[in-house]
């Protein structure tokens, strides 16, 4: 079996398993939907944090923005706002058509809003030449600030949050519906990234990661590439956020939308666990992280966080480059890195990105 055939087999198996999963494990639909959100989190984070080497702590901002934009559009499209505010959300159940139109329009609008905000923030942070720790701290502030703004803004429910409409019964299985939304979204993201990483874009952002000054000196328009990567990340996070708000059902400003302490940290952990700067790393990391987390939650009641912490320490000690990074080092030929026999002994490090 050559590598193209092998790849086709792997992709085919994953595709079939993913399509069948909600029907094989009907009780786990919602959790599987969250699994795709996690994969999406890790992939979008890795685009900026791994491939480009800009460790961001604030990507969650776009997730929250998407959540709120979609919820607001759903609300404004179908309800009289004055009445809605007056009765604090006491509203009738939506028809399937209304629910879907609100949801998808909202997700579309989220994408636009997030890219605009991403561009503005990018201009302020990236175009100003913020790098390294400074960039990290800057983005850390973004998430916190967004949560505080949302908590104080009455139009979007302030601290009381917003409630998504109840899922219309005629649309069938709620879990499966959201599962496929997140599945499709993640597949699109994955293919987009695969295509991007294979071309000039991938090389350029890798060059930025390896040595930004040198990259710039070679004529790469670094700011443009950085902004593009940041905005792509924002776009997918926002669209996912829009649907996630409806999946969770209740949008709390700091604990669901701008949940930096949970989702915001997890997306980094998952990417590092799987191996940052690789295409499959974030996917593998997210799957392992999420399944482990669910298992710990069930069987290590009350100690789940401790166990999770221990696991993370273990991962960092044994696999500092993440699972994929470790595998790449061990079996470089599987990753398309040919190692000459004569140089094998001298370059133990083997294989670049």
């Amino acid at each position, binding site marked *: 079996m050559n590598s193209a055939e092998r790849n086709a087999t792997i992709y085919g198996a994953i595709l079939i398993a993913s399509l069948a999963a909600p029907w094989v*494990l*009907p*009780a*786990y*639909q*919602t*959790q599987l939907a*969250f699994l795709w959100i996690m994969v999406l989190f890790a992939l979008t984070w890795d685009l900026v944090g791994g491939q480009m080497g800009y460790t961001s702590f604030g990507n969650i901002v776009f997730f929250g923005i998407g959540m709120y934009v979609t919820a607001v559009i759903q609300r404004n499209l179908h309800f009289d706002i004055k009445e809605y505010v007056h*009765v*604090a*959300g*006491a*509203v*009738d*159940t939506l028809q399937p058509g209304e629910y879907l139109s609100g949801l998808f329009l909202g997700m579309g609008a989220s994408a636009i809003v997030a890219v605009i905000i991403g561009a503005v923030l990018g201009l302020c942070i990236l175009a100003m030449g913020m790098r390294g720790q400074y960039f990290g701290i800057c983005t850390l502030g973004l998430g916190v600030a967004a949560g*505080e703004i949302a*908590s*104080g803004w009455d139009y979007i429910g*302030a*601290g*009381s*949050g917003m*409630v*998504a409409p*109840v*899922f219309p019964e005629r649309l069938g299985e*709620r*879990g499966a519906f959201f599962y496929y939304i997140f599945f499709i979204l993640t597949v699109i993201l994955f293919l987009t990234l695969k295509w991007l990483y294979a071309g000039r874009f991938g090389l350029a952002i890798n060059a930025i990661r390896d040595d930004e000054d040198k990259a710039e000196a070679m004529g790469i328009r670094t700011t443009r590439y950085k902004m593009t990567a940041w905005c792509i990340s924002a776009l997918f996070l926002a669209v996912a956020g829009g649907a996630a708000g409806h999946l*969770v*059902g*209740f949008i*709390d400003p*700091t*604990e*669901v939308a701008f*949940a930096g302490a*949970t989702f915001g940290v997890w997306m980094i952990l998952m990417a590092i666990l799987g191996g940052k700067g690789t295409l499959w790393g974030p996917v593998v990391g997210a799957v*392992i992280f999420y*399944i*482990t987390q*669910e*298992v710990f*939650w*069930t*069987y290590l*009641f*009350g100690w*789940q*966080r401790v166990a999770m912490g221990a696991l993370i320490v273990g991962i960092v000690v*044994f*696999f500092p480059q993440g*699972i994929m990074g*470790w595998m790449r080092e*061990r079996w470089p030929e599987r990753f398309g890195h040919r190692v000459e026999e004569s140089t094998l002994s001298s370059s133990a490090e083997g294989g670049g990105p």
Partner: protein
Amino acid sequence: MLSKGKILIALVVAVAAVGLVVATTAVAKVEGDTIIFGAAVSFTGKYSTNGKHTKNGYDLAVKRLNEMGGVKVGDKTYKVEIKYYDDESTPARAGQLADRLIKQDGIKFILGPYGSGPTKGMAPITEKYKIPMVEGNGASRALFNKGYRYLFAVLTTSEQYLAESINLLAEEFKKQGRDPSTAKVAIAVENDPFSMDIRAGVIEDAKRYGMKVIIDDKLPKELTDMTATLTKVKALRPDALIVSGHSKGAALAVRQTAQMKVDVPMLALTHCEAADVVGKFGGDANYTLCATQWAPTMTYKDDWFGFAGDYAKRFEAEYGYVPPYQAAESTASVLVYVDALQRAGSFDTEKVRDAIAATKLETFYGWVDFDDTGKNIAKPMVLRQVQKGVYIPVAPSKFAAGQVIYPRPLWRDR
């Protein structure tokens, strides 16, 4: 290198194996002769103190019911059990866990989490699957105007928590021959669903009397300091300061008003008991007004626990502290559920839901009678004042055991 490989393989195998176990162990709602309730409660996170009260309340009810022989549904008597998860004080997690309890564990009867936020996270899920949820710790009124059919709350909703303090303020003004509309009110609440509702209720009542709200602060969720608000209080001299921020907010208000010697004629709080302000701050807690859903001194009774005081004794013997109302309302939730199961004589969720809706029951916690929206309308809030280290009910007059001391003595006279 080889050892790392083994570790990786072991890790993957372990995860896969445990995943398989998870996939195959679905518990039924009624197993043999046991009825299993499901609950996601905050064991960790910012609500963990009250989450513990909630769990203790549930557990005491279960223990008592099993002690008394169990619950008779139809012709058979069943033991009771609760399956718990930790919602980590977040609504997102609570919602996921509701889904897990219902779909994976096959639970048909859900008990509420602690707090309005997590309850808001769970309600859309239980509603979707038409599984009844009886809760005693989600007081936000926003839970009861969504048309939820399967959500029932034994407690009084949050906008009523401190409304009584405004009435009390108006009464005191009239006694002094002053016009209640000249009263000035200061509000400082945590920015979360529950406390924001408290604020809404207080503002509504203040408006009714034409009182002026001169300070209206939102406190951050990481409540560690409210000196900014208290400095304003010192400068603007309101007639009443209303603070709500769960246990942390209560402790903070008592501690910092004492530290800064803030003289305000009336200080009204929620969660005094849960925060144990008397135990922690002693004399500094005196004259604080505390809204309570329930107190051991009340005279309600039922067949399971006897009087409220008997419940308190039983609880203290079991857990070593006086039950705060968060525990009592949790216990009451289980009792309401069990009563409905007995009356329904069936485990059919629709029948049980209808039986819960038809509840008219006196428990040690108070009367329970749900309106169409699922909230209990038969039990009023009570306002107690800490006097010489003891909680004395002062309003409404039906429950009053003493006179309210208004205004609070100045700090220099204490």
